[in-house]
């Protein structure tokens, strides 16, 4: 019987088949750590007198708590500082490679792994962070785990797991100009719902997906978790191989040939059967934004704020009502009329170099809407350096945006970059939950293009809404 991509990767990692309803024991090729979900795992190891089984398959970076300005100063918040210092102490004690604040390979864990070439097709990748699904863009089986699982992987380099169900998401056609990977995934989540992917690995395929760059594919896989899925995957192809070639941890020489041969066998068999299939026409998509407080509450930018009455499902109706109250939105308002206070460009969803380039292309030669705060936060120190080499930082600062150091920043209310109560943002991050960007903050999830156009007009907008830049500017 044919197997899907996810099933092939799974089968290649079974250390021991579970019998009788028992989970399989799966080998883990790459374990990523950060300061928030690891302290208790190391504490557990210490208490039990255990060591890290494979320090050579483990790597750590500091991201969630780190400030994005004045990074040479001690972290002001004592609790954040304690978490970061605890990670440093644990990595030293257990012999784990760590990229600290200030280091060129520091950054958001899901930006750093691919950038180093550590994320490769066919691997199993885990991290104590739900957006580990990002790495599935390479054809890796990558998923978030909880802290006790982090401890389990540290101690054994394996995880007991039950096979996931498989769902194919086929996006046919070519995306229209101005419609990006972010819009595709927001549309997918709006279609299948925040619970629609539960128990599944989503495999994205079809013409629109094949045409995407690696970074765009990462944006899609990143947000699979927002549909409730365990992981998202895309079969590796020439785009994947070209991205990996020459990266620090990618194989080289004879090893490269062996690796490519192996990676090329990963694509799902044509006769493989998925548990569920969803098909979208990519050519009909347009920029997508969220109006509510979960990532499934989104609509095309040309739409209007819905009314709770538009929903037939009673729990969706209640959820919409609550969301509208929290978001302080009136049903029927065109989404394009919603004015924001802050624009955030960054996160593991959209904090890579292509995202910054896309935003800079919109902002170049234009002026910031009055009273708007714009934060541009690269996903890693390397992305920051590259952006500066390309002069993007100049575009951002000339526009009036704040050009920050790498980290999770305003993606979550955990470091100093936060919304204040009632403040409204257009954000390229992945979660619009109540208070996610700071207590009382209101979040609209958008693509980098929409974020940039919104920074120009002050209301949710796409680049198509902008007047042409006068010649010579």
């Amino acid at each position, binding site marked *: 019987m044919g197997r899907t991509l996810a099933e092939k990767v799974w089968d290649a990692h079974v*250390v*021991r088949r579970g019998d009788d*309803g028992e*989970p399989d024991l799966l*080998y883990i*090729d*790459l374990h990523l750590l950060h300061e*928030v*979900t690891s302290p*208790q795992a190391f*504490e557990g190891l210490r208490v*039990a007198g255990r060591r890290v*089984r494979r*320090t*050579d*398959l483990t790597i750590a970076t500091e991201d969630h*708590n780190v400030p994005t300005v004045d990074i040479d100063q001690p972290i002001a*918040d004592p*609790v954040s500082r*304690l*978490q970061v210092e605890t990670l440093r102490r644990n990595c030293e004690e257990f012999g784990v*490679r760590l990229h600290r604040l200030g280091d060129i390979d520091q950054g958001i864990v899901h930006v750093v792994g691919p950038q180093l*070439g*550590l994320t*490769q097709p066919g*691997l199993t990748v885990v991290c*104590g*962070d*739900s957006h580990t699904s990002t790495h599935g863009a390479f054809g890796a089986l990558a998923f*978030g*785990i*909880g*802290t*006790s*699982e982090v401890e*389990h992987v540290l101690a*054994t*380099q*394996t995880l*007991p797991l039950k096979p996931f169900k498989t769902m194919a998401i086929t996006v046919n056609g070519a995306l229209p100009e101005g419609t990006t990977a972010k819009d595709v995934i927001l549309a997918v989540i709006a279609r299948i719902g*925040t*619970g629609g992917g*539960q128990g599944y690995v989503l495999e994205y395929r079809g013409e629109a997906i094949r045409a995407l760059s690696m970074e765009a594919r990462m944006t899609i896989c990143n947000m699979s978790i927002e549909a*409730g899925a*365990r992981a998202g995957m895309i079969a590796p192809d020439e785009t994947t191989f070209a991205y990996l070639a020459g990266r620090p*941890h990618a*194989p080289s020489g004879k*090893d490269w040939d*062996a690796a490519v041969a*192996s990676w090329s066998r990963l694509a799902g068999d044509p006769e493989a059967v998925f548990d569920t299939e969803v098909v979208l026409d990519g050519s009909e998509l347009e920029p997508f934004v969220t109006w509510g407080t*979960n990532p499934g509450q989104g609509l095309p930018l040309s739409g209007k704020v819905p009314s709770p009455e538009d929903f037939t499902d009673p*729990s969706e109706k*209640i*959820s919409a009502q609550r969301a509208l109250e929290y978001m302080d939105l009136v049903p029927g308002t065109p989404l394009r009329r919603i004015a924001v206070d802050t624009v955030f460009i960054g996160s593991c969803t959209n904090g890579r170099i292509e995202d910054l380039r896309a935003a800079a292309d919109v902002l170049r030669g234009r002026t910031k809407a009055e009273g708007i705060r714009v934060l541009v936060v690269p996903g890693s120190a390397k992305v920051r350096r590259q952006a500066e080499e390309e002069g993007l930082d100049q575009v951002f600062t000339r526009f009036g945006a704040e050009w920050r150091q790498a980290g999770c920043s305003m993606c979550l*209310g955990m470091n100093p970059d936060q919304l204040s109560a009632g403040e409204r943002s257009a954000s390229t991050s992945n*979660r619009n*939950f*109540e*208070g*996610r960007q700071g207590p009382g903050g209101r979040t609209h999830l958008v693509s980098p293009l929409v974020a940039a156009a919104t920074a120009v007009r002050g209301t949710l907008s796409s680049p198509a809404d902008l007047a042409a830049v006068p010649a010579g500017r």
Partner: protein
Amino acid sequence: MEKFIAHTGVGVPLRRSNVDTDQIIPAVYLKRVTRTGFEDGLFAAWRNQPDFVLNADAYRSGSVLVAGPDFGTGSSREHAVWALKDYGFRVVLSSRFADIFRGNSGKQGLLTGVVDQADVERLWKVLEDAPGTSVTVDLRERTVTGGGLSVPFEVDDYTRWRLLEGLDDIGLTLQHVDAIAQFEQQRPGWLPTTLPVP
């Protein structure tokens, strides 16, 4: 891990669906490096509202949470489970749970039972009509009883066995350490390692 066979305690009706882990414990509480003391973060935003269910005296000592569908969605933070446990909850019942949350719960000895939404509604009614009602959650029988009701819940056999035996994961896996070593022997040499490259 403590064995879970049956538990009796006050049932708390939480009439909300899609309770994500940011609501269960907001990010600001995740900064600790210990494994205990997370009870103050539980539903922190809601507990500031006087009419929130846990602020009523009758429910304050609750240990069986009865929630709407899609409980525990969002971030994989295990702190959500610790917060519920540290507060005193031993059981959460809902018609649907997020997978990661459910997995995390089973490992920490917090029982997540799947109950039909119709039964959730009946439980809510009983618990609201008589605040402070105790219910008994019997893992052997897979039933919730109390206030004149008795409804079944689902939990998969493996998680149930682990909870009944109070078994810890790592210990279980290390019984197969030879198989792990054998697997490592046959991994291709070109697979990446995190050792610094020159």
